């Protein structure tokens, strides 16, 4: 089976690891080989969390710079920071709602314009899907469902070997019961907007 390499970048607390778990579970249930890796050393202290997911016939659990087929960014500046993980054929999906790091908040750094970020991502890679996942999550009734909106957008690209149905059943299986309904709604909205 062909190999598809996905990198997800997020800020601690955005639910990146849950999104990876959903994708992993959906793959396992569909019989698609999957291996994942995560680095989240100091996520609770506001750091960056990165997951790598390798679908198909490969043994490695990590992805080298320049070798991601898809980059999914939960935060626009972090998506841009992860551009080195891409090549000109990479498909990029980014949330456009910024979470400025503390260094910016105290005036020790300048947050790039969202338009600049999107323009660079679009120019340097195969294509860019940019959506305000925070607004969609809010609309779906759960501000924390940014991860589900973005999973929806990811599915809409059709690049991943997992089906939307298997992802929905994984969401039902592993996300908290109180949130299943809004999570599914957020996922559907992400699919629709990106599709």
């Amino acid at each position, binding site marked *: 089976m062909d190999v598809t390499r996905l990198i997800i970048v997020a800020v601690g607390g955005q639910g990146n690891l849950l999104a990876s778990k959903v994708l992993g579970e959906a793959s396992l249930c569909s019989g698609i080989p*999957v291996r*994942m890796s995560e680095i989240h050393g100091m996520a*609770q202290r*506001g750091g960056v969390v990165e997951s790598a997911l390798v679908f198909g016939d490969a043994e490695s*659990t990590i992805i080298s710079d320049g070798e991601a087929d898809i980059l999914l960014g939960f935060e626009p*500046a972090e998506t*841009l920071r992860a551009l080195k993980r891409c090549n000109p054929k990479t498909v990029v999906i980014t949330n456009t709602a910024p979470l400025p790091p503390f260094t910016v908040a105290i005036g020790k750094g300048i947050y790039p314009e969202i338009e*600049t970020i999107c323009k660079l991502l679009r120019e340097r890679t195969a294509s860019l899907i940019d959506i305000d996942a925070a607004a969609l999550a809010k609309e779906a009734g759960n501000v924390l469902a940014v991860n589900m909106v973005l999973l929806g957008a990811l599915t809409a690209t059709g690049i991943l070997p997992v089906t939307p149905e298997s992802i929905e059943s994984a969401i039902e299986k592993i996300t908290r019961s109180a949130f299943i309904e809004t999570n599914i709604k957020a996922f559907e909205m992400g699919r629709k907007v990106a599709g």
Partner: protein
Amino acid sequence: MHKLLMDSPGEKMLLLGNEAIARGAIEAGMAFATTYPGTPSSASSEISANFFTMASESPLYFEYSTNEKVALEVAAAAANSGLRTMCVMKHVGVNVAADALMTLAYVGVTGGLVILTADDPYMFSSQNEQDNRYYGKLSGLPIVEPVFVDEARQMMGYAFDLSEKLGEPVLFRTTTRLNHSTGPVTFGAIRKPVTKGEFKKDPFSKVTVPAVSRKLHVRLVENIERAERLSCESPYNTITGDGPWGIVANGVSVNYVADAVSDLSITDRVRVLRVGFSHPMPESLILKFLDGCEKVLIVEEGEPFMEEAIRAIAQSAGITVSIQGKAKNLFSRLFEYDPGLVRAKIAAYFCVPYDAPVKIDLSDIPQIPQRPPNLCAGCSHRAVFYEVNQATAGMETIKPTDIGCYTLGFLPPLSSGDFLICMGSSVGTSSGFSQACDQKVISFIGDSTFFHSGIPGLINAVFNNHDFTLVILDNQTTAMTGHQPHPGVDMMAMNHEGYGRVSIESVVRGIGVPHVSVIKPYNVKKSIAAIREAVAHKGVSVVIARQECVLLAKSLKKLKGKPFYVSDKCKNHKNCINDLACPAFYLDGGRVKIDPNQCTGCSVCTQICPEHAILPVKGK
């Protein structure tokens, strides 16, 4: 029921490497486990956290010990009473346990003892990237190293069997990448654990006076020979392929080699030796592997451990084929490897045509602001650092620090950390600096770290009459690694019965520290006064800053403070943002604002505002 305790052989699920290791131990009938927390072998959802939860619903005995040496001693006794025992620690933890380890290797065990050492190439969360395979060589003990997640589960049973076969502990070495990888796992059957031990007295084999140890060392050396034979037969030391190009790999590098060989379409040109039982190295298997090789490449993160061994084996057999690994144009001793790097090096070494993936031009990408980890909003450590800075304003100081969340205080503007080498070093180095230099020494240590290895240093300081102030940051948990308990924690309050409790203040007073004070760091004025007094004391003084970790309080739903806001009395001095730098602050058009979702209501900023402009949000 805890998912890792389910007696459901054949069940397939995705597990983290750490979970697979925990499951493997349960399948192997492990009855006793000890640890001192340290990422990557700890943190929530990981090995010891799983043991802690499983112990409450199974016959497993598990404890968080005060440090790795104690953890290994506790485990050594259990294993010498016949119980299958595991002792989990991060790589640098083995340094702490090394004294116990080196002679336990002589004494051996009767029940299987597996010591897990989690190495950390790239230092994702560690102070060094030492390669603990050398502990195998130093102690004479066997080492096994898994390649992928499900293998970590299987290998646990193998390691216990090996330990019992040889009658000695086995080192189970992982790296962060394996611990934090997720992969499919198929459950095996659970062997019923033997939970009650029996210690058979045999002082002439178990009490290491010189006459006994001379005998035991002979046995250990014989055991290394036996272990070498087992290493040659091990299912984890295997040769695949019979091409003329030899590649040797261990751990996660085996995966990168497999993918590279497939990507480069050179399967029929290579033979791969994967080494999963890496000490002692399998000599006869290596000779078999080298026979017919044109050239050999060794792929191993860290030190040239296998490279040195394979070169020595080749040399004594008169084999002159080129064996390379660590070299200027090949592999580095530094950091982690990745699939692309391994692919490129294999292509270069064996002269395989290879087009590297096209890189994106990043030269004109605007600078992206850094997102460094930061002390949490409302963290009491920040208050203490601010208070110490105020109390010592204008003084020349040296501030040794220690290992924990508070290490982050070394960054500006708090700038509270000048020297750090290892757990507990704040205390010992304070003695040295205060004796060697004229500056006033004020050092920082966390509560868990104080219990781990701060106490002997403090006794030393009292005995030798050193002159410094030690601030013990008592947040009543081991926060950095995921809120594990320690001896000072009130376990009853956390709904865990059957524990004792040690008071840091009683320990400090019992040691005879001449000047001891306890502060509540959220009370700024009183804390500064107490710190000033402690610093003025000539001799050893200790300030205990007592405030529960805000992140823990939040997760236990104990946070009661109202958020604060900046009122229009603000004259924009910005002392709050410049001196405290709490992440709840942000600038909006040059004016300081407070994010009410982040503010925990600690009220420290309101106490330092010269205009008293920071006020609690009404009605919340």
